[in-house]
């Protein structure tokens, strides 16, 4: 989890910010997390990850702001 502590390069920062603005967290961080902490369990592919997050964004109870 120490990877997050370092400052991100600007381009990466903007790309991650843009993705998270629409509810998509960083895929590589997800993979790294699963590898480190749940090595015995399956890891979603990039597409599965995208679909899972897209579904999750709109099935929560938090709406958009006025």
């Amino acid at each position, binding site marked *: *989890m120490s990877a*997050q502590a370092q*400052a*991100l390069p600007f381009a990466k*920062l903007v*790309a*991650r*910010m*843009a*993705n*998270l*603005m*629409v*509810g*998509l*967290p*960083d895929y590589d*961080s*997800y*993979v*790294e*997390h*699963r590898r480190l*902490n749940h090595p015995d369990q399956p890891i979603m592919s*990039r*597409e599965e*990850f*995208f*679909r*899972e*997050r*897209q*579904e*999750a*964004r*709109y*099935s*929560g*109870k*938090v*709406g*958009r*702001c*006025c």
Partner: protein
Amino acid sequence: MNGTAGRLVWLIVALVGAASLGVVALSRGETVNALWVVVAALCTYTIAYRFYSLYIANTALKLDGGRPTPAMRHNDGLDYVPTDKWVLFGHHFAAIAGAGPLVGPVLAAQMGYLPGTLWILVGVVFAGAVQDFIILFASTRRDGRSLGDMIKSEMGTVPGVIALFGVLLIMIILLAVLALIVVKALAGSPWGTFTVFATMPIAVLMGIYGRFIRPGRVGEMSAIGLVLLLLGIMGGQWVAEDPAWAAAFTFKGETLALMLIAYGFIASVLPVWLLLAPRDYLSTFLKIGTIIALAVGILIVMPELHMPAVSRFVDGSGPVFSGQLFPFLFITIACGSVSGFHALISSGTTPKMLETEAQARMIGYGAMLAESFVAIMALISACVLHPGVYFAMNTPAGVIGTTVDQAAQVVGNWGFAITPDELAQVAKNVGETTILSRAGGAPTLAVGMSTILSSLVGGQSMTAFWYHFAILFEALFILTTVDAGTRVARFMIQDLLGTAVPALRVTQSWGANLLATAIAVAGWGYFLYQGVVDPLGGINTLWPLFGISNQMLAAIALMLGTVILFKMKREKFAWVTILPTVWLAICTLTAGWQKLFDDNPAVGFLAHAKKFSTALADGKVLAPAKTTEAMARVITNDYVDATLCGLFMAVVVSMLVFGILNIRKALANPRATAHEVGIGGAAVAAGDD
């Protein structure tokens, strides 16, 4: 930057800010440059952030940078992810920035630029940013739990249910008023209507691309969408100039309202990947891009404000919204200063992604300052217009008539001299047949933005393009909110119905799903249609209701913050939340009271109902009603609005009572009783009550 040098810098910031505010407040010349407002705002924000938010962080809340956050404790790479603070700032800002801060200040400009500017600045520093910050903090200490959950666990089950009910009412009113803004902007505008309609096939195309052709490539699909969108704006001009096509895309408000209601129903039961998600991507990036463009535009163009500092309408006789400066200016500005809705976002996804608790200051307080700056820019955009144009655009046809000659005369009598030709020219410049009586904020903002942006890029020939770009940008994210909001309202309704009939809670069930969606759409659709046929323009009635409900939710959130401070045994610092809570309670209750009981039919719902009832009894028909049935409908609407207003007030008062009871209980207990989740994961309420 410590020691003497640091102090010197802050002294300079303070002096520059004070001087700019002085210019803004005292300038009585012809015009004042918008740059003074910008500088005053930026200085206020930096000082408030550096000193007040630091005080809240270190002294009042005592943020603990070493305490593991939900993201650290439950990291799953999906919902709970430790996230770089700048990335998270962007996420949070994009989630809180909506149509509210763009519309409220535009409407508030009828009282001049000064009252609005002052409240946007004071309100955000002492109320709005404090609320966002403290709710984010509270949720971070409770595993990222929602506002409703926190109210339930810290204040009791009954207040929790009341608050949830309040949130559902807000959703309904919010969706209605936002949909009304779109209807007002598109009625009689083939260019705008075509462009907004075009976003639907564009979004579907993007959705298919992102689902099947290049799965998950958000950047690519958004770029494609943006190009098509710009082509859509150009296509709209072609449509508007061709008589046959223009006729095909010219609709009355009533028709647009019915279309929007049907759209809301269909869009919110479709799979999200097909329409909602892709359009959400497009509207999010367009929103952020436009906000940045507007900021750059204002800084480079440095427009003059033509609106007077304080207009004659502070007396409450204004055409845009009725009622006096207190409380209605505060109710009208709403989101740009303090928005209860942000409490839902601050207890939503953001607290699950903080790396450390200390970052709650930058993300909670800081992002709200940025939102406030959006409100300042919206106010500037409205005030760069000739006041004659502003009032011609925002006054109902019942007052200024339907021709430029009549409008110029009425507006001129108010002291804003303008010629009919000038009014006609503005419409021509933006590619519309008329700009009269386009209440709702969006068209006014669009004219202001097109003035600024065309000075930056394209000049006069691009004014019409920028106008429709601005309309599209607002319509796009309003439609996204309508769609997403209808889904949220559906879940809430299913939850509520589920307490009676458990089968209705199953979100996979098509029957339950369609029933709850129908109820949600019927709820906001009713108010939307009522607003469209309202002779005073609808916004006049609905925006104050929305403002009251939004400020009511903010009062509830701040009350929760206060109770938490008392339960943490930090009551010495509770004035930080008590101050804005009391102010918001006074504002919402006064406004609610006046909306209910004021003798002036333009302000009070009951007085308006009485006026129509009396006329009906005498066999008279009052405009806009043309039949006795229409008269009866007006009266029914008045009573519905009055009931809603009464409900909002009841929610505020009951939450105040529960808040005070909880505070007394916390004071009587010598130990801290806040239900925080802490180090190691166990609940560490020091003394569980």
